[in-house]
């Protein structure tokens, strides 16, 4: 059994952890200290909006209309680039947050969304089963992502060469998981600061 159902106490602890993380408000790193399978009772959309260092992606999901997807019953996992990751895109990151570029932002975010409830522990289990070879997951875009452990670091990459490090163990919600990343998984053109 991979993940026992939360008892009421455990759920409360998970919620308290999220509140605590929100209270920190000092950047994305704190968001990564959550333990695997911490899970809040709220939806993925709520968990994301409460997570520190995720303002850009939360706002982007709302502005593109995608946030509603994560308020429903279907399960998704969001590979969520933190605010610093969008900042690292430079002008491109700024442009993408403009209303006239919401379709482009939606296309990029779509490549960060995986089907189902997928924890870092699940990824590690799959890597163990594969003998350390990369494991792949389909996205809601037209691509796959690959996970691999490089030392202690869990790295996710895309076929176009974009790479990001997974920050911590993620945040669970009733209908999905947020896995923070330190970079945006889209190989934008050179000169824009993209990964």
């Amino acid at each position: 059994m991979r993940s026992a159902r939360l008892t009421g106490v455990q759920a409360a602890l998970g919620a308290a952890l999220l509140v605590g993380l929100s209270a920190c408000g000092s950047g994305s790193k704190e968001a990564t200290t959550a333990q695997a399978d911490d899970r809040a009772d709220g939806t993925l959309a709520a968990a994301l909006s409460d997570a520190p260092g995720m303002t850009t992606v939360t706002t982007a999901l709302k502005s593109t209309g995608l946030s509603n997807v994560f308020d429903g019953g279907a399960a998704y996992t969001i590979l969520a680039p933190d605010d610093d990751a969008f900042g690292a895109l430079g002008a491109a990151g700024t442009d993408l947050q403009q209303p006239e570029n919401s379709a482009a932002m939606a296309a990029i975010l779509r490549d960060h969304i995986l089907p189902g409830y997928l924890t870092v522990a699940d990824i590690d289990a799959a890597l163990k089963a594969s003998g350390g070879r990369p494991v792949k997951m389909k996205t809601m875009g037209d691509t796959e992502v690959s996970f691999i452990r490089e030392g202690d670091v869990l790295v996710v990459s895309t076929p176009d060469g974009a790479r990001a490090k997974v920050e911590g163990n993620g945040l669970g919600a009733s209908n999905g998981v947020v896995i923070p990343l330190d970079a945006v998984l889209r190989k934008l053109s050179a000169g824009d600061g993209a990964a």
Partner: protein
Amino acid sequence: MLIRFVTTAAAIALAAVAVNADPGKGNGGDKGNGGGKGGGGDHAGQVHAQADHPGKGGNGKAKSPDDAKPGKSGKSAQGDDRGALRDNSGEGRGGAKNADKAQSRNKDRDDVRFVRDDERGERFDDRGGRGERFSWASLNRREVVEGCPPGLAKKNNGCLPPGLAKKRDDDWREGYDRPDWWGMTGYEGRYSYHDGSLLRLGSNGSILGYLPLLGGALSPGQMWPSFYAPVAVPDYYQDYYNLGSNDGYRYHDDALYSVDPQSQAISSIVALLTGDDFAVGQRLPAGYDVYNLPYSYRDEYADGPDANYRYSDGYVYQVDPKTQLIQTVIELLT
């Protein structure tokens, strides 16, 4: 969410009568994939009526002409073997049909059995299908919308291109004018992004049509392009994604939208889909290496030496760990 049920299929006889306790649902006559809900004319789906499902035929394999159309790479349009042996009576397979259940479908499916096995899957196909057979690819309409996009049409200037051909002045948009940048492959011709759509340009620069984009022309508040007619998805998906009335949702490019039936304005983006085809007896599609079951189902369906489980688009698939062949399809009902 509640787990309704799954039965490993191998032991269930092929000749078993598919039981459906919802004789009034009518997927065949009025909303089959090839039927009269708009999807038929657009998709020319071949409907294999289900004699065992009174009023519920029509979810048969819908071979779409879109097989040959542009689409997302790696997503085949071959038929799906999703078959349903439903018994809403709570008496197990073969229970009595109960017309009353048609009115309480959403709350009274505690003993749904959704069964396929790797042998019966194909034979169901040969028989014209006893269970639900559905592929998102059958709904795909990735043709360019004919005419002028709404934003340009409002300008009433004859749909003149707004200086589209000029070189983008920033690097990150390199490739931005190509459909593949947006995850749409196989399109030929010249395109240019404008205001939430990719404009299809003629050789003289005129606008031939457009591809509306998720989060752009296809976002809340925008009008649904009538070119993409309503489609009917199986009841299960309507329930799972809470799609509401048949005229209140639309599908395009692996996304489900809610629309206002009167105004046709998009209310929300309801769901994103992989659109992957899963068929009992066939290999699990690529890209499902990691256990990903929704939280509420993990106790019930944990990976083990005899079976792995993977989730996609509202279903759980039981997979043989050694062969990677899909053994069983499991419905998850809310």
